[in-house]
């Protein structure tokens, strides 16, 4: 009964998301495209944070590298969009393998600091390697060709692009969800709660943490590959450490203990940002107050709090 109601709610939400371009203005099509992409970014981060228990301050490195890979492929190779996305994922996964190799050896604050340090290095490279990255201006002036799979879609149309993003984020989310619910995902949750006990069960905890880190990096790269055509630029801001803070805030806002938490966090984050900045300049102040309240009173995030409240009511 409980699952049935939740599934019904989920179906309504998905139907609503599909219908967005037919009922909403261009402005909201853009907003929802951004929510989906950042939601995927935050969900990939939560595989590392909420499931495996590693607080990464460098997740934007993978998001940014994914966007640069997309821009470079579109400019120089003009490959179909879906193939370019695979390049984004691959580039981010490779970077995550290199960074993760060093970071997963460390725990807690040392892990966080090292991911931050690597994130800053990647930013510095993108900022200064002008011949490839075009420095602070970033890479722009690329255009989307075909989607791939022989489908003839005008990707430059925001409504079409929204639906493509929705489909890709949907598929990626299902894959991530299955990983979270798999035996591997169960081991990740166990590692978060008690890594030593997992190693005494015969598993190499570092290897598992590294695999989780690489998977999360790949999906962050996918999100980055989706954001570049949306913003029409791949710029160093996407790699900046402040960009690494966004998935952290979104995951905590929505609820790190739930798969959909980061998506809800992303939606609330983007919508609040949009509405509040239209009234006042002090969006960061409002966000700070909301986050402080969440951390002090609603540790389980919005989704967790609502689900708890619903269970109470049903009793």
């Amino acid at each position, binding site marked *: 009964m409980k699952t049935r109601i939740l599934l019904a709610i989920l179906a309504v939400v998905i139907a609503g998301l599909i219908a967005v371009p037919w009922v909403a203005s261009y402005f909201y099509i853009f907003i929802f495209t951004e929510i989906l992409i950042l939601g995927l970014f935050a969900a990939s981060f939560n595989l590392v944070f909420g499931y495996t228990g590693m607080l990464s301050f460098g997740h934007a490195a993978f998001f940014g590298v994914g966007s640069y890979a997309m821009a470079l492929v579109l400019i120089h190779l003009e490959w179909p969009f879906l193939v370019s996305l695979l390049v984004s994922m691959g580039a981010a996964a490779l970077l995550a393998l290199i960074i993760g190799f060093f970071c997963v050896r460390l725990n807690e604050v040392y892990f966080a600091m090292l991911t931050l340090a690597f994130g800053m290095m990647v930013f510095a490279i993108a900022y200064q390697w002008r011949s490839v990255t075009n420095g602070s201006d970033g890479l722009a002036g690329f255009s989307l060709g075909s989607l791939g799979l022989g489908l003839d879609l005008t990707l430059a149309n925001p409504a079409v692009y929204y639906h493509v993003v929705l489909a890709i984020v949907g598929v990626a989310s299902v894959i991530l969800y299955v990983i979270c619910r798999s035996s591997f995902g169960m081991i990740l*949750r166990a590692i978060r709660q008690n890594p030593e006990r997992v190693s*005494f069960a*015969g598993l190499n905890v570092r290897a598992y943490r590294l695999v989780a880190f690489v*998977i999360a990096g790949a999906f962050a790269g996918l999100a980055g590959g989706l954001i570049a055509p949306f913003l029409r630029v791949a710029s160093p801001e996407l790699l900046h450490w402040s960009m690494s803070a966004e998935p952290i805030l979104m995951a905590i806002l929505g609820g790190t203990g739930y798969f959909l938490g980061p998506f809800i966090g992303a939606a609330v984050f983007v919508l609040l940002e949009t509405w509040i900045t239209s009234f006042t300049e002090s969006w960061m102040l409002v966000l700070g107050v909301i986050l402080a309240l969440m951390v002090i009173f609603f540790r389980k995030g919005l989704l967790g709090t609502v689900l708890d409240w619903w269970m109470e009511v049903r009793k």
Partner: protein
Amino acid sequence: MTNPVLTISNLTKRFGGNTAVSGINLDVMPKETIAIIGPNGAGKTTFYNMVSGRMQPSEGNVVLDGKDITGLPPHKISRLGVSRSFQINNIFPEMTVQENVEVVLSAYHGHSRKLFNIASRNTGIQHEAIELLKRLGIDNLKGQRAEVISYGDKRLLEIAMVLATRPKLVLLDEPTAGMTPDETRRTTKLVKSLADSGDYTFLVTEHDMDVVFGLADRILVMHRGEKLFAGTPEEVKNHPEVRRAYLGEEDDETEESNA
């Protein structure tokens, strides 16, 4: 003649100038239960930490089934068949009792590498987990979050997790520590029945002398990191030096506290 499961020779651990364990030799035969006793600070847990890979020995060797495992990391030693419990509860607090066992079973069976199965539909692992919980008499708690069950039940859950890897050698570190007298009796009986089943080889450290004399085939008495004596429970009970150094010491303490 059968070969020992575990052969320990000259095992030594020094921390700076302090020798925590010094030159311990021990052969553990299959299906045997050996108790290691000694006052706090005798080096029992350090000894376990070296055998299970949590600490590197300063000197000496640990050989399991003819294979040198000295200084290997814990996950490799676990894979080779040594499974241990801890003095403090070491479980996955936010998971259910059953999931706690399933984690270890998934690791043991190699399911932990599967990214695209659904763990909650893995009926083989679930049945095996429930069988183990039944063996420990806590299958009625399978759906509870592990952090909410009683202290004694947590310790039993830990034993279930330790047995889940089908170990050649089980190291139990004070399995009844902190238990109520009732829980202690229940746990002793249980470990005794597991030992009598002939499925396991146990090393047990323990403070409670009744538990030790009830369980052990042989007893190793440690004192300040060294082997003081090894023998059958009867021999240990009657050994004058052991009585003075360990069994007697308890009397001394009582006298002091009475004074």
